[in-house]
């Protein structure tokens, strides 16, 4: 037993060290390495730096001639999920992956557009066709919620993160369009990518939301390349037309609650009904087995032992909680101690989860203080009542980071819209705007993370658009973004 504990502890500690080291690593960029290293400007605050060379462009007529999501008139009846699953055909993907094309794709996407060796690009055209059709279906139903309800955390979802490969494939096809100057095709193909991102968001899991964001970032990377091309259409109104927030977290975050509820159905029913009969011990044991199945960091025997100990220690506070909720002393006495403890711990999980979840739909700059406070309270409660908090400790996902991930995508979309506003105004004025107020023809978007206007400066023919980190957070390539904008003709006015 001590040896197992030592080994398990070492593994978890190793993971924590790895995670901590990674958190401090500045080298990560979500889409590609195109942004210049910020080390060149040591005096500036650390940020992800993106240098764009722009061509002025007025808004097209009609304004939404180019769109980044398929329009309603292009949609056909049917469920997109069926076609996405068709596109997963192993007959196409397995040979493709075995030849190393997929691994190459990631490296090729990381290259600057003009330096990418086009001859090395291989695409799965059959799969792309299915994706194009899927993106233009009226709805997308992954039919995962009932499965999640029944199977909970044990549900196998090998398909969800595979869709990230779809995103790479779609991004690469758009890149080829850009290289060949087929701008109309590029925009149409980007529509498929953005639609895939939205459709993935229909799934009821956090992983769905994360993959949705990842695909969204890939498409935004291509839009950054697109707007630098000569004769690139102005996408200000196309970006303004995208749904906001682009990734809706309501369903994925609620799906996590469905998953947890699926682990202890009787316990939740007992919580809601003070007259619910006591739950049999073997039923509670089966819940423990389920808990062990989803997390094998500890053995089932150890888990049982720890569960019994924590249940005994948590019983007094659990009993008090149930009495406050209207349960009678007799009812509580009739319940197994483990049931009382589980009921209390599940109630605490609901409470802690909702304390974070309730903020998700507010603008990030409004939600952030509340989310931080909720997380601090969670940590404090874990210190004060470690035994009663074992379920939240076991199962609570890091919702704050998921919400921040969504805000980062929102910020990139807003900054691109800002870039397009600059191009639009430059087309009218013949030069880059020198101040934010000089952008008069269209409204300038605010920073979704800070809730304030982006910082905009101009000097020596270069405009700088800066999005600072959230208040109280150090600047890093994830928390801050700096766009350096120049006109292609070298006009320094």
């Amino acid at each position, binding site marked *: 037993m001590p040896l197992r504990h030592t080994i398990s*502890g070492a593994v978890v500690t190793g993971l924590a060290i790895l*995670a901590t080291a990674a958190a401090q690593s500045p*080298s990560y960029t979500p889409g590609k390495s195109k942004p210049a290293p910020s080390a060149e400007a040591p005096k500036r605050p650390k940020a992800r730096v993106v240098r764009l060379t722009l061509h002025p462009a007025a808004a097209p007529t009609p304004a939404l001639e180019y769109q980044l999501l398929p329009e309603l008139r292009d949609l056909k009846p049917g469920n997109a999920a069926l076609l996405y699953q068709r596109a997963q055909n192993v007959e196409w993907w397995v040979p493709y992956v075995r030849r190393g094309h997929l691994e190459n794709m990631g490296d090729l996407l990381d290259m600057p557009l003009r330096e990418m060796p086009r001859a090395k690009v291989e695409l799965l055209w059959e799969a792309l066709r299915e994706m194009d059709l899927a993106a233009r279906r009226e709805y997308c139903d992954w039919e995962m919620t009932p499965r999640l309800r029944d199977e909970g955390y*044990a549900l*196998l979802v090998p398909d969800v993160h595979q869709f990230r490969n779809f995103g790479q494939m779609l991004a690469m096809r758009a890149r080829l369009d850009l290289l060949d100057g087929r701008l109309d095709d590029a925009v149409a193909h980007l529509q498929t990518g953005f639609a895939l991102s939205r459709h993935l968001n229909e799934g009821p899991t956090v992983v769905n939301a994360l993959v949705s964001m990842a695909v969204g970032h890939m498409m935004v990377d291509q839009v950054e390349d697109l707007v630098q091309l000569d004769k690139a259409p102005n996408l200000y109104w196309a970006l303004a037309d995208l749904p906001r927030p682009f990734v809706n977290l309501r369903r994925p975050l609620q799906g996590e609650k469905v998953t947890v509820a699926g682990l202890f159905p009787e316990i939740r029913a007992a919580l809601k009904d003070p007259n619910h009969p006591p739950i049999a011990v073997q039923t509670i044991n089966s819940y423990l087995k389920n808990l062990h199945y989803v997390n094998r960091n500890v053995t089932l025997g150890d888990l049982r032992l720890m569960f019994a100990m924590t249940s005994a220690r948590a019983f007094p506070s659990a009993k008090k909680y149930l009495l406050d909720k209207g349960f009678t002393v007799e009812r509580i006495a*009739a319940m197994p101690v483990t049931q009382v403890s589980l009921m209390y711990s599940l109630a605490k999980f609901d409470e802690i989860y909702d304390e974070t979840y309730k903020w998700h739909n507010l603008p990030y700059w409004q939600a952030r203080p509340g989310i931080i406070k909720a997380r601090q309270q969670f940590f404090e409660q874990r210190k004060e009542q470690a035994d009663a908090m*074992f379920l939240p400790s076991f199962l609570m996902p890091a919702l704050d980071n998921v919400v921040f991930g969504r805000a980062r995508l929102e910020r990139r979309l807003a900054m691109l819209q800002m870039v397009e506003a600059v191009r639009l105004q430059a087309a009218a004025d013949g030069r880059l705007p020198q101040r934010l107020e000089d952008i008069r023809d269209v409204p300038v978007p605010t920073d979704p993370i800070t809730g304030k206007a982006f910082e905009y400066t101009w000097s020596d023919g270069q405009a700088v658009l800066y999005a600072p980190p959230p208040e109280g957070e150090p600047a890093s390539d994830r928390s801050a973004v700096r766009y350096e904008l120049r006109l292609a003709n070298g006009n320094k006015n």
Partner: protein
Amino acid sequence: MPARREKDLSDLEKLLAALPPRPTTLDRDHLLFRAGQASMRRSWIWPFVAVTMSAATGCLAMFLFLRPAPEPIVQIVQVQVPAPAPPVTPEPGPATQPPAPLHAYGTPSAMSYWQIQQQALLFGVENLPSPVTQSDGEPERRAPRTPDMSTGARPKMVEQFSPFLFGVP
């Protein structure tokens, strides 16, 4: 001359008439059977089949009579035992059927949603194993390139599991 001939014939007739009829040794039916038999090719197929079938029948008959007595069929019937009634007033409800074990839905090597969620939150979705690269059903466990803490990593792994691993909050 004619008279002499007539006389010779008459003698011959007398001689012939003097011959006594003798029973023949030639069996007409047997002759015809032998003729038919000779016209056919001799084949050992039917005798062989007959002998083989007889032997097989004999063997099966032996097995039938010499086989051991059949094992008694044991049928296990699970009966739910109600939870023991506590001594206090509320009557416990009947024990509920335990839910199907979660592991019934997947093989130990397949990554459950929980595992995928953990990896995605810790290392980012770009470091999740790609199912199509699996050739033998074993999940590909590629070393993560660079963890993405921004997309939902759980920075407090030790804290989360410490109550279970080390007994401290």
